[in-house]
């Protein structure tokens, strides 16, 4: 059976809208999670990620649309199954650990609710805590645990649920490598049995791109783009998506020809051939995305260095060019003084849809570098 058959999906969200007093927090969203897959919901706060998770978990009924889990409809506007009857486990934002229960009893809770007796439930819970390397904390209450330990208990409780869909509601701290490994291993194990998936809400692009098999971009409750991490990073649908998924320079130039994955861009009056594409080549300038790795210092083009910031393994250079400001990331410390003319090369572009937003450098990471660079006028 091909992987995209609906029967292979652990979660199907069909045209889902969730409204609070007339305001749609989730607005006609369609998406699905396949078996063994982690889908990240990436969006700024207020974009509807948590609401979408609430509707999937059963904390909120949909206003319109349907939620299907494992090929079974669990929610539509007329009827919503309660959370305990859905095959989902939730890791909460601040973990929502019960202050009156020890770590062991917390993890044993879902096992007990499955009908296990106290003793076997505790044994199973201890085994899960052991996998997360916190078996020695079994008797502690949440108040006696550090943030990272609380996160592990929260995840252990979710794992104990043995659900086919794991929901992560923006965990406050990133999952560390070990915790992430345990979770992904669990998905692999469960995939061989019945199949399980994850839905991970976050506002952090780096975490979403690094963790997920596919990423869904949400803005104001709407699904903006859905694709692999590589796709949403390299081929964002618009300027907003480009800024959300990583450092992005948005410049303007004319793409005069495109063929077989390469295209010609007019920069400083020259035609430069780079990797990229264009829907309709022509003489008009269009907004183009340049990721930090798609341009480098040295070469036939020249620009003026507006700001340079040392970032440890690499340095960020903000170069003012005839196309606009371009962020170039180079290994090592900055090699040029701010204000110098520097040579540079463009190697790749991605045409963006024309939007009302003006061109320039987008993305939180970059605007910080930019503003710092501008105020930083002292000579190096």
């Amino acid at each position, binding site marked *: 059976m091909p992987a995209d058959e609906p029967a292979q999906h652990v979660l199907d969200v069909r045209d889902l809208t969730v409204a*609070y007093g007339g305001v749609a927090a989730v607005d006609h969203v369609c998406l699905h999670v396949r078996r063994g897959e982690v889908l990240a919901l990436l969006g700024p706060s207020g974009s509807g990620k948590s609401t979408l998770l609430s509707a999937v978990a059963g904390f909120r*009924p949909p206003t319109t649309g349907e939620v299907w889990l494992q090929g079974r409809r669990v929610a539509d506007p007329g009827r*919503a199954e309660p959370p305990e009857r859905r095959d989902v*486990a*939730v890791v909460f934002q*601040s973990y929502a*650990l019960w202050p009156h229960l020890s770590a062991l009893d917390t993890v044993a809770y879902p096992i007990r609710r499955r009908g296990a007796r106290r003793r076997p439930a505790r044994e199973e819970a201890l085994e899960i805590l052991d996998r997360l390397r916190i078996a020695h904390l079994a008797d502690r209450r949440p*108040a006696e645990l550090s943030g990272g330990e609380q996160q592990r208990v929260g995840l252990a409780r979710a794992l104990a*649920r043995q659900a086919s869909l794991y929901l992560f509601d923006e965990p406050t701290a990133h999952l560390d490598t070990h915790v992430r490994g345990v979770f992904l291993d669990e998905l692999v194990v469960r995939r061989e049995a019945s199949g399980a998936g994850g839905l991970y809400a976050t506002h952090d692009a780096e975490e979403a791109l690094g963790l997920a098999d596919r990423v869904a971009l949400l803005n104001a409750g709407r699904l903006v783009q859905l694709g692999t991490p590589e796709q949403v990073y390299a081929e964002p649908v618009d300027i907003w998506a480009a800024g959300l998924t990583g450092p992005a320079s948005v410049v303007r130039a004319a793409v005069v020809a495109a063929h077989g994955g390469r295209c010609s861009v007019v920069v400083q009056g020259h035609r430069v051939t780079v990797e990229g594409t264009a829907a309709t080549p022509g003489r008009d300038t269009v907004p183009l995305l340049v990721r930090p790795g798609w341009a480098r210092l040295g070469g036939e083009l020249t620009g003026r260095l507006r700001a340079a910031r040392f970032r440890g393994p690499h340095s960020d250079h903000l170069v003012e060019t005839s196309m606009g400001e371009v962020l170039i990331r180079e290994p090592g410390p900055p090699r040029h003084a701010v204000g110098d003319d520097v040579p540079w090369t463009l190697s790749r572009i991605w045409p963006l849809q024309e939007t009302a937003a003006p061109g320039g450098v987008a993305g939180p990471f970059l605007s910080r570098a930019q503003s710092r660079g501008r105020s930083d006028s002292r000579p190096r």
Partner: protein
Amino acid sequence: MQARSTDLGRRAAVLAVGTVIFLLVVLPVFRLGYVVWTEGSTQLDEVLGRPGLGEAVLNTVLLAVAVTVTAVPLGTLVALGLRRADVPGRGWWRFAMLLPVLVPQFVLGYSWTQAYGRAGFTDTILGLVWPSVLGPWGVWAVLVVNTVPLTYLFVAVGLATRAEPNLERAARASGGDPASVLRHVTLPLLRPSIAAASVLSFVLTMESFAIPQVMGTPAGFTTVTTTIYRDLSLGSDPLSFVEALTLALLLVALTVLVVIPADLWLGPRLRVTRVANPEGAPIVTPRGAAGRWIAAGLGGYLLLGVVLPLIALVTAAITPAVGVSPSPGNWTLDNFRFVVNARNAEALGRSALLAFAAAGLLTVLGGAVAVLERRRAGRVMASLVTVTLVLPGSTLAVALLITYGRWIGGTLTLILLAYLAKLWAFAHRPISGALDRLAAGEMQAARASGAKALTAVRTVALRPLAPALLGAWLICFVTALHEVTMSSLLYGPDSDTLAVVVLNSKELGRIGATAALSVLLTLVMLLPALPLWVLIRRLQSPRHPRAGGARSLAHAR
């Protein structure tokens, strides 16, 4: 240099407030113990052998147990029910559930007798009489109606601060059905709040006076407080006086017996370290029949418990005499004309003066302790003030009487002192709670932005504290206006308050006049209370409820 002078100022403040507490509470209670010890030791056997004394003590304890085991589960049910989003008119019910406390206790008790007693409202209209409304069952029922708002409030606050929605969502998402979540998560989280509500309900019932006096005494049902009142106001032999003193001491001993173990157990538990942030909204269920049933239940409860009795009271006030049909043709304002006279106007003036003075002073005193308790030296004071919350009014009145009675007995000053001692904790708790919620960083940020200490208080702290300060004032004002336990023991020829006038009018058996006075007293209280309450609500609500978009809207529910 400046640090030393503020330190000195703080010490002076601690000393001053400490002296006031000592003079108002500690000294009188010790004096009471001393007098009972010296004068009572010879007559103690005689006193303890008096008929009816053991019965009064037993009645008091049984009543306290009966009210607690009814009012606490009821209050918990109401709090849990009102948390469901599908109850129609939820915001209104939350307000309405607190209404019974706005009605003075003896007015509520008297209204019940007018509603359900012989020749009462239901008797006249439907022929339904409930003779035992006078006696233990009636006292129990009205005390429950009067206590449920309190237990509801305790549990509702516990729900809001302890049972975060996400903790319950986590349990549901772990496979727990609603009943299991209630048992394993919600109720364990609420246990300290429920226990605190139980202790308070027990103690307040033990020291309640107005309702047992109005509904129990006519049927021969005595409690410790009504016996003290009888001994001091009617008894003329020295033995009665010693009995009153002994009972006053016994009452405080019984209270301490309950409060101290409870405080030892509860103290650490009520200070639970909070782990998660308050997040998430309760689980939303589609509108169903359950919400309507809850609303109907609350409506029935309020109708029978408060509304119908108050209608009966108003009817009695506008009916010329007992036995006259309460039909519109017979309505008259004669009862009001009868009670609106110079004497009662003076009493009203005294009541208002006392209530205003007490509320103003108490807000200052409560605020002072709330500020000072943040330092080590002030903590003992805060504990002492909290103890006065459970110090029975009768005990306090008797203690103040024998300590200061020879100088200021029968004056308004003594009554004012009693109010200050008894209600200090009422003012202290809300202000202290508001100070706790004030983020420390906010004041520091103001100081770091160049504000002096007082400027920082005025510009940054006063606005978030305003609802608590106004609330403290309002609680003290309303309670002082209601107060009859201490006033009825302490008033003199020219210092009776309106509440005492109503009580005496009732003792004289003037039904129409008592009803008219009760209506007037309730109206006088509502006059400043309602606008202030609206103001407090407005101050509490966030300025721009819609600013945060859908997320904050969801949280607001």
